[in-house]
């Protein structure tokens, strides 16, 4: 039968593309179905105003894993690499950091920052080694699992007594306390706080924010790049690799359900009513959407469903895109600095205060922002001489009280523009067109439950062996033939491709049932 495949991958996000490409390279007959017109999921470049394009969700590259690049022989062109972070100051005395270097702060903070970065980088390396392989399962007698668990313990122990103690002390802690003890500069503390909470439903005083900070560093020691042509070019390169590996990619094909017969998956049915058959279905959709919507609670066990249903995934970050007729003026900022990553986070309390309303379902009146001007280094994104600003704005809770109606969106957009105008007073005059994507929009456009781009909060209770949930680590669901390969699985979100690669390895080894 023509419609029978060795594997069907649902969703062509970057992880779906990586997984499909690796399965294809191994000689499998693979079909990749994407709901949207474009592949890439949340890593896409698309127009948002006449002549202006932007990376619609993710806009910086932290951690595309070298293993993925090597396996798929990718050759990505970067518009910018090793970008600096500049925390804006209203008086023009900006703080800037990159790697272990920081400037715009007192000498004491410079030394402490180097020490802080060294330690954090060391811990994040530890996480990184765990990223590129399936996480061990607990409570099994499987030798591979026991070995990799022992390895994990050994790696922690190898830090040495003092560092191990420090690692265990910090891993569950909030970043606020650690920064408070270490640094004087409010801007530095604000910037690092924002680094820790970006894309999460956490404030710097929330436990676990050291862990999210380490996660940000883990990909490539926090090195930030911006691909030429926007994030979509990464996805296009992955799609090219997948096609070269023989994968059939079909876009505009939203999957309605994953078909289950006699306790195993047998295929998928699209919204259009088309059916495709395969005994291996790999979902790049988030765990909640995959299990609750595409498979159905009917086909899985009660406690498993309960755990899936309880995955914390309330998106809290919005995306603001501005089409500008020229670069804004920012006091104390050199023209070349528009190619860097700019943060609006006056101090650590400012970040925490921005988070406060989100706890009660309200958006921040004074939000924190991560700004980039991708057109500065990549002219393909805007008409000549014009510019694009792409910003992550927090906090915009998914479950906004009263819902994300037009008035609520306008209010939040104005709050964001007002926050920017404190540093760039002429920003408003420069706006030609604008677009705000709230978590509700992100959910709609990218099919992510809760608009959470990590497919589930990256916290200790949803990490490693318990990501997405206990009893379902290692990409294999308790339903024969069903796998996950997205950010909802180990290691998590960010355009890394690690989850897709790990999933492909598990599938190719025939699954790992204990």
């Amino acid at each position, binding site marked *: 039968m023509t419609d029978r495949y060795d594997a069907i991958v649902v969703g062509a996000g970057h992880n779906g593309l990586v997984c499909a490409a690796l399965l294809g390279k191994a000689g499998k007959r693979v079909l990749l179905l994407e709901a949207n017109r474009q592949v890439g999921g949340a890593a896409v470049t698309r127009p948002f105003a006449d002549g202006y394009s932007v990376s619609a969700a993710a806009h910086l590259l932290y951690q595309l894993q070298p293993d993925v690049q090597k396996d798929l022989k990718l050759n990505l062109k970067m518009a910018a690499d090793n970008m600096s972070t500049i925390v804006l100051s209203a008086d023009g005395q900006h703080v800037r950091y990159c790697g272990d270097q920081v400037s715009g702060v007192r000498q004491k903070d410079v030394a402490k920052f180097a020490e802080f970065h060294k330690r954090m980088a060391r811990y994040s390396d530890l996480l990184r080694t765990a990223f590129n392989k399936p996480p061990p399962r607990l409570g099994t007698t499987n030798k591979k699992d026991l070995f990799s668990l022992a390895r994990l313990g050994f790696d922690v122990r190898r830090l040495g007594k003092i560092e191990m103690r420090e690692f265990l002390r910090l891993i569950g802690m909030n970043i606020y306390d650690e920064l408070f003890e270490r640094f004087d500069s409010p801007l530095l503390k604000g910037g690092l706080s924002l680094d820790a909470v970006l894309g999460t439903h956490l404030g710097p005083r929330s436990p676990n924010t050291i862990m999210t900070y380490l996660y940000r560093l883990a990909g490539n020691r926090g090195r930030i790049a911006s691909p030429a042509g926007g994030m979509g070019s990464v996805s296009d390169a992955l799609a090219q690799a997948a096609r070269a590996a023989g994968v059939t990619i079909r876009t505009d094909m939203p999957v309605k359900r994953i078909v*289950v017969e006699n306790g195993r998956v047998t295929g998928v049915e699209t919204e259009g009513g088309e059916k495709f058959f395969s005994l291996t279905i790999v979902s790049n959709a988030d765990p909640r959407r995959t299990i609750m919507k595409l498979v159905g609670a009917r*086909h899985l066990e009660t406690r*498993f469903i309960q755990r899936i249903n309880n995955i914390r995934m309330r998106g809290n970050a919005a995306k603001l895109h501005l089409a500008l007729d020229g670069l804004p003026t920012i006091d104390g900022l050199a023209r070349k600095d528009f190619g860097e990553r700019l943060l609006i986070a006056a101090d650590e309390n400012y970040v925490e205060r921005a988070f406060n309303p989100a706890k009660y379902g309200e958006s921040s009146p004074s939000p924190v922002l991560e700004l980039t001007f991708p057109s500065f280094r990549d002219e393909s994104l805007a008409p000549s001489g014009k510019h694009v600003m792409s910003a992550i704005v927090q906090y915009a809770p998914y479950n906004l009280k009263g819902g994300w109606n037009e008035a609520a969106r306008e209010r939040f957009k104005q709050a964001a523009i007002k926050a920017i105008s404190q540093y760039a007073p002429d920003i408003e005059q420069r706006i030609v067109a604008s677009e705000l994507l709230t978590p509700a929009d992100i959910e709609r456009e990218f099919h992510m439950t809760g608009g959470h781009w990590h497919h589930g909060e990256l916290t200790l209770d949803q990490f490693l062996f318990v990501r997405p949930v206990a009893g379902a680590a290692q990409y294999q669901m308790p339903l024969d033939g069903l796998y996950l390969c997205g950010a909802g699985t180990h290691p998590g979100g960010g355009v890394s491709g690690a989850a897709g690669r790990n999933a492909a390895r598990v599938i190719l080894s025939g699954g790992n049932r204990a």
Partner: protein
Amino acid sequence: MSISEVPQGRLRTPFYSRLQKLDTLNTWHEWKGYSSADALYCAETEYFAIRNATGVFDLTPMTKYRITGPDALDYLDRLVTRDMRKIKPGRVAYAVWCNDQGQVIDDGTIFHLREGEYRLCSQERHFAWLTAAAIGFDVSIVVETAEIAALAVQGPTSFSVLSRMGLEGLGDLKPFGLMHFEFEGAELLVSRTGYTGDLGYEVWIAAEKAEALWDALFDAGKLHGIRPIGTSALDLARIEAGYLAAFEDFLPADTTVRTGRSRSPFELGLDWLVDFKKPNFNGRRALAEEKRNGSTWRLVKLDIEGNKPAHHSYIYAKEKRNRKEIGFITSAAWSPVCKQNIALGTVRMPHGKPGDTVWVEIFYQREMHWTRVMAKAVVVDKPFWFPPRRSLTPPAPY
């Protein structure tokens, strides 16, 4: 509801005013918050009412859930191990439900009241589990334990009693069937179900009509030997029928702490309730694995020599040398109607095949001094008490 409005202490069922008048022993125990009588005047006489006339047991404390909504059938079919699609409106299903590991949480009966409308009844309470199991289903689960009063009307003359009450057409009701009647403007539900292994019915009505129903029932039963009964008599009858009791013959899986103390349906002799041909049900994966690898335990019905009930006894494979303890008794009784020393027990596989001989170590006291006998016991397949009248339709008019 403020704290002062929450009923304090033990609850009384809507039949309490009637039971109280007939009660001479004043021995009550607690059953899920309600007072329930051990016996009202004499457990033995009450037992014989079940076997020779009609015994009436107040089963209002039985936990009742009304389950409705577009996904009610799918929900129940996922919940229990048997195929609920086969249970048509007007039928009742005995069923067990398991946790994710295929271990029995409880057994109970599911009434398909009307198309898409169900009632689930069980001895224990399960709202938390039922609610968790409802995630992803469009169903409503309402606890109606207090709102619905219920009586078990059990024994050979029960059909005659209910007929005399004016329930026309009851004769057509087959075992595990249910019918709706009108009683004083309220809906009276009658099901041919019970816990005695005999001809018998259970009647269900809104709590406000409970006393009127009781009066009408006892009025109609006067010439048919109707008697109220307590839990002791019922417990003896259920052992004769080979029925399981939670916390006696198995522990609900959610109450066990140690691994290996819960039981799968296979280990309780309920293989016939597990249907691998139907779509997924909770515990299916685990049970399929157990089916492949074999179970640890087996529930046995034992016919034991002698007349000393084998309460709490160990079961051995051999009488003397190399005695190996293979299990234990969970329910035991001298059966007056069978004239047999009977018991339910649990043994380790592969012991306890029907027809096997095992040995039961019975301790009993004689004038303070303990005596021990090793009694020979045979594993039997069928219930000890299974009279033809139990399933005869229409029932004979005793």
